[in-house]
């Protein structure tokens, strides 16, 4: 029920943002607060489920999608408070869409919502660090995705430079968080649980591919001019790979992360 209200708030916010986006005269002051409200409600759901399973509710696809939707909603709010992005309507708009997509997927059959307490392998503090840091990093990558698209479609050199800087900033924030969550904490947990810090399991391999893509972006950016189209393309590709790592690997490839 609470998640449904959060979803409804996001839909209302989306309508207001759409009006504001296409009718520039209309100022939208409400949708950021609706996004914040939605994020807080989703946080309540996460806390409720955590109490129910007596563990942090990040142990299956449904809970992961709720957590991602919560992060996207909170980011949609935070981005409007960030001086470099406060003028861009596309950013909260896109993050709102992302939150709606995550919630829609959470209510679909691919993510059963039944409350299930964690199996022994998942009962580790490293799980919380591993998954939450990975998702927080990915939400910054999502911001980078939007700004990279805006960078590619920018009509003036100034706005291209502005969006390039935003893309770089969001990747530069997300990259260390993602590195910590997906690779470092994941490796430490894997050693603690399985005795092997790296197994070339499909999920691990695809997380590495995501990391390599963003690493390549950061290195290319050191040597290429910021007008190159390769860099925003790499950021878009990086986010697509990150989402494949989350969804695609779960449904298409089996491995040690099959319960994730």
């Amino acid at each position, binding site marked *: 029920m609470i998640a449904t209200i959060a979803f409804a708030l996001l839909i209302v916010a989306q309508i207001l943002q759409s009006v504001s986006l296409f009718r520039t005269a209309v100022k939208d002051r409400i949708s950021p607060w609706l996004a914040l409200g939605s994020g807080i409600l989703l946080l309540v759901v996460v806390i409720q489920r955590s109490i129910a399973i007596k563990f942090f509710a990040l142990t299956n696809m449904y809970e992961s999608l709720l957590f991602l939707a919560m992060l996207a909603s909170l980011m949609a709010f935070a981005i409007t408070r960030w001086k470099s992005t406060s003028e861009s309507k596309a950013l909260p708009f896109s993050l709102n869409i992302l939150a709606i997509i995550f919630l829609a997927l959470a209510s679909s059959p691919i993510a059963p919502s039944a409350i299930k307490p964690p199996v*022994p392998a998942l009962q580790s503090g490293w799980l919380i660090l591993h998954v939450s840091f990975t998702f927080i990093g990915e939400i910054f990558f999502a911001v980078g995705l939007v700004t990279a698209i805006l960078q590619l479609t920018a009509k003036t050199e100034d706005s291209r430079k502005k969006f390039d800087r935003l893309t770089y900033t969001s990747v530069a*924030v997300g990259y260390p968080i993602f590195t910590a969550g997906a690779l*470092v904490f994941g490796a430490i947990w894997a*050693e603690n649980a399985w005795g092997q810090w790296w197994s070339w399991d499909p999920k691990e391999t695809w997380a590495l591919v995501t990391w390599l893509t963003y*690493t390549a972006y950061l290195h290319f950016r050191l*040597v290429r001019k910021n007008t190159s189209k390769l860099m925003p393309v790499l950021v878009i590709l990086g986010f697509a790979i990150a989402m494949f790592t989350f969804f695609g690997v779960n449904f298409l490839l089996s491995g040690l992360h099959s319960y994730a």
Partner: protein
Amino acid sequence: MDSITDRIYSFLKSIKLAAFLLVLIGIFAIIGGIIPQGKSLEFYLSHYPKFAKTIQGLGFDHIFTSLPFLALVALFTVNLTVCTVHRFGTEMAKPREKRKHGPDLLHIGLIVIIFGSILSARTRTEEMFYLAKGQHLHLPDKMVLQIMALSEEKYDTGRVRSWTTEAILRQPSPEPAHTDEQFSGGDTLGEEGFADQKLSGTFPAMPAMPAAPSSPNAAASKTPAETETTVSVPEGEKVTIKVNAPLRRKGYTVYQFNWKKSQVPVLAGKDGIIRELEPGNRILTPEGFILFMAFEEAPAPQGAPVTPKAVFLVDSAGKRDLVKAQPGDSIQGYTFQGYGEHPISGLKVISDRWFPLILAGLVLALFGTALTYIKKLKGLNI
């Protein structure tokens, strides 16, 4: 004009080379992420009938240990090392307040991880053991892990909550242990039994033949109470092994890796006491002993359900016979009642003395990444 050495040095330290190698490693990783690794030709033929031979021919079935991938990683390591040394020198030439060592730490961390992984791959050992209550395991430091209790906790829904192996870590016994180790209606094989036997399959493998009791009369003098139900507690350190909470000892770690149920034969004595025997356990009888060895997989004609026969070694006044029995049969005054279930703990003993180096590399890389981008973000003034 630059010398060849200068050109090689410039090539090896270049960021362009690093970016190119990252892309190539990424492509290899994508291939390895799509094609399941380390499977048989039959697997690839059934899943990718058109490409199975190509996959094996190009080494895509073991891409992460293939020569091209390893060569790529080696070149990447050289590139990273040269780049790091060069960068470190450049940074050190700057005034202290302008130095940025985040990337150096990150790169050193990655180099340490790569070298740690090579050393780990060459020296790491891993062995899997399946043990029931009362059985024991010889560990690499000569200590013995004696299983005292196995417990499986479940949630109300029936979902598994935890698997716990409780054990005693003790010095090896100088004497054959069957004199003081008893459990579940029979004594164990002692130090010569399951120790260091790598077991696999549904049931534990057949143990080595036991030595005959030194004195049949001594064995016969044991009362049922002496051979009943509980494991006597040997002296030693109590340890608990759970999933995500391994037993860490100097030089090796014991992981709770698997959990099984094994079928065991249930024998009822004339005294009414029920005894369940793990493979290798025996009941002392007035004539000698009954030792359960293993199950015989009976042939199943035309898909009929299989009722496995239990194979016992029966000692009667020193004369030994192999007896294949089914539920209902009588063995030396005991009735084979049927089958019970015992938990079997799957423990993995891993010795990986280079993991601390890898861990140090991971921490360095993490610290270096954070330092690099915190400084860069401060510089962006966003």
